[in-house]
């Protein structure tokens, strides 16, 4: 392979003789040799000699720029008159603006420090989220007083997104959960001749727990993620800033219709989910356990009380608010880049699911404690 660079000492000068083709496709010679030579004894001047140089491109200028930075660090004078005029001009241009000294925060990498940083961040996020909930409540109160405004079309579009558009996926998931529940229940109950109680199990479990929770989780992945992505993109595109500067409050204009729509539509979806879950149970009961359809429905009616239904529907309103608020919160608090939208959406889904499950657990424990 042809030799591209010769470093020779000529009294107080260090001569860098360049030869052959200096192109990116051949790769850049290492600057280590020059650094070593400088380290052994500090020259007064660095001189480029390009008499033997053939073709060149950015590879040559990148190398010369690295040498120039090294020379500047050590206070060595540099003579670039030997470089081709084009390369010299580009080098001058690159050196025209000195590197900006950028001071970046140095993070302590110790485990305890990281735990501390995360804990502080979690505290700040919790406080911020609480403020966000407060602002939403304030916007809602303004709406009740007739002082808040949003476009009816936005509300209807959110109603569609969190209602009809989600019905198919909720139906499928609920039907299968009802069927699986019936099947698992039957395995345990059939040996005791109590297969008919599968109807009670499916009916109560779906209306009270699984219907609301599964719908909440599905809606988090679907509608909550969509809210976060849409509002995040609006934030990145400065659309949210445009609302603010025009005197329109994002909480009222963007967040409120979505929260209202989801809180209104989730009970409807949960009622639908309850029905589809019981249908799934009925399907397994009739086809696999050979129970009569009338017998199954009669047992379901006997076991189900209105209290179960109301508890489930009550939870669904809370889950709807949680799903929409989480999606909107992460969307509005999104960073300013495309990657930030992805992060906001992921966080909205993860946090939404966690909050739905936690809210369900809290409600279940509370209702058990008060004996409902």
């Amino acid at each position, binding site marked *: 392979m042809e030799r591209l660079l010769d470093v020779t000492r000529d009294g107080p000068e260090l001569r860098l003789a360049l030869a052959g083709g200096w192109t*990116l*496709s051949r*790769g*850049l010679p290492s600057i280590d040799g020059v650094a070593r030579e400088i380290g052994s004894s500090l020259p007064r001047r660095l001189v480029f000699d390009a008499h033997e140089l053939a073709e060149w*491109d*950015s*590879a040559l*200028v*990148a*190398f010369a*720029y*690295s040498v120039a930075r090294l020379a500047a660090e050590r206070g060595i004078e540099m003579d670039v008159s030997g470089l081709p*005029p*084009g*390369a010299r*001009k*580009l080098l001058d*241009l*690159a*050196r*025209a*603006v*000195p*590197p*900006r*000294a*950028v001071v*970046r925060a140095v993070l302590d990498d110790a485990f305890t420090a990281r735990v501390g940083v995360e804990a502080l961040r979690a505290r700040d996020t919790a406080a911020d989220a609480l403020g966000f909930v407060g602002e939403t409540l304030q916007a809602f109160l303004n709406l009740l007083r007739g002082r808040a405004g949003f476009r009816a079309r936005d509300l209807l579009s959110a109603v569609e997104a969190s209602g009809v558009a989600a019905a198919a996926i909720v139906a499928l998931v609920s039907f299968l959960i009802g069927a699986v529940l019936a099947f698992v229940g039957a395995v345990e109950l059939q040996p005791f001749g109590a297969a008919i109680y599968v109807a009670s199990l499916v009916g109560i479990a779906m209306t009270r727990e699984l219907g609301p929770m599964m719908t909440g989780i599905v809606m988090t992945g679907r509608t909550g993620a969509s809210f976060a992505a849409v509002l995040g993109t609006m934030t990145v595109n400065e659309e949210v800033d445009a609302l603010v500067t025009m005197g329109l409050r994002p909480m009222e204009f963007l967040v409120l219709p979505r929260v209202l729509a989801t809180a209104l539509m989730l009970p409807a979806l949960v009622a639908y989910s309850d029905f589809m879950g019981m249908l799934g149970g009925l399907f397994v009961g009739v086809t696999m356990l050979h129970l009569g359809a009338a017998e199954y429905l009669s047992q379901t009616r006997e076991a189900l009380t209105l209290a179960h239904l109301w508890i489930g529907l009550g939870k669904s309103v809370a889950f709807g608010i949680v799903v929409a608020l989480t999606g909107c919160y992460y969307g509005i608090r999104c*960073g*300013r*880049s*495309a*990657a*930030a939208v992805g992060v906001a959406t992921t966080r909205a889904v993860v946090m939404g699911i966690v909050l739905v499950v936690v809210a369900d657990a809290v409600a279940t424990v509370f209702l058990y404690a008060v004996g409902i």
Partner: protein
Amino acid sequence: MTTSEAHVEVRDLTMAYGDTVIQKDVSFTVARGEIFVIMGDSGGGKSTLMRHMIGLHPPASGDVLYEGEAFWAAGDEERETLKQRFGVLYQGAALWSSMTLAENVALPLVDKRGVSAADASEVARLKLALVGLAGFEEHHPSEISGGMRKRAGLARAMALDPEVLYLDEPSAGLDPLSSRRLDDLILEQRESAGTTVVIVTHELPSIFALGDDAVFLDGERKAMIARGRPSELREHPDPKVRAFLSRGRL
């Protein structure tokens, strides 16, 4: 360093979005080493013309030729090879937000030229220094200002030492000093590497400072209505061209 050799040729190009025709039968040649300005009123099809020239939008009819080689008539593979001859600075910089500035510049070098990561990093450092962003290599696009993003976008466009550099509104959003520095950089790039530069702009100072040749696209007439040196177009018979180049003072 301009030569009369045609480097890029736009031949009978008709541009349309669906049934909506934007410009009809546009034809011109760009000489090697020339700084060529595409100007015109807003919505007149300047950026659309550039999108046709860089392979982002197929023409309704006509073609773009690079040294006589038809771009749109070529197969996919040939087109990919032709694309490596040019670098593009987009209007909004279009930096990849998940990468640092150095990674943005280094990616095409590693991916398209097979340059080693270490060499690509050195070249990225140089390209960023050329646009006045030395020291910002490890910043992400979201951490710098709009003008700096524009300059980083230019550094990325120059990463592969392209033969043709396409710049879509390079000075928009820059302060006068940065704008002047950018103009100087474009001139240096042309002088030192013989790069052909095609600029879409309506910044008059840049048009007069840089342009060797120019075309004027009229959105209303859907046609190219003027061609020539920007300084000479000030005396063009068409009042719209004269008004444009004198900020409405006729």
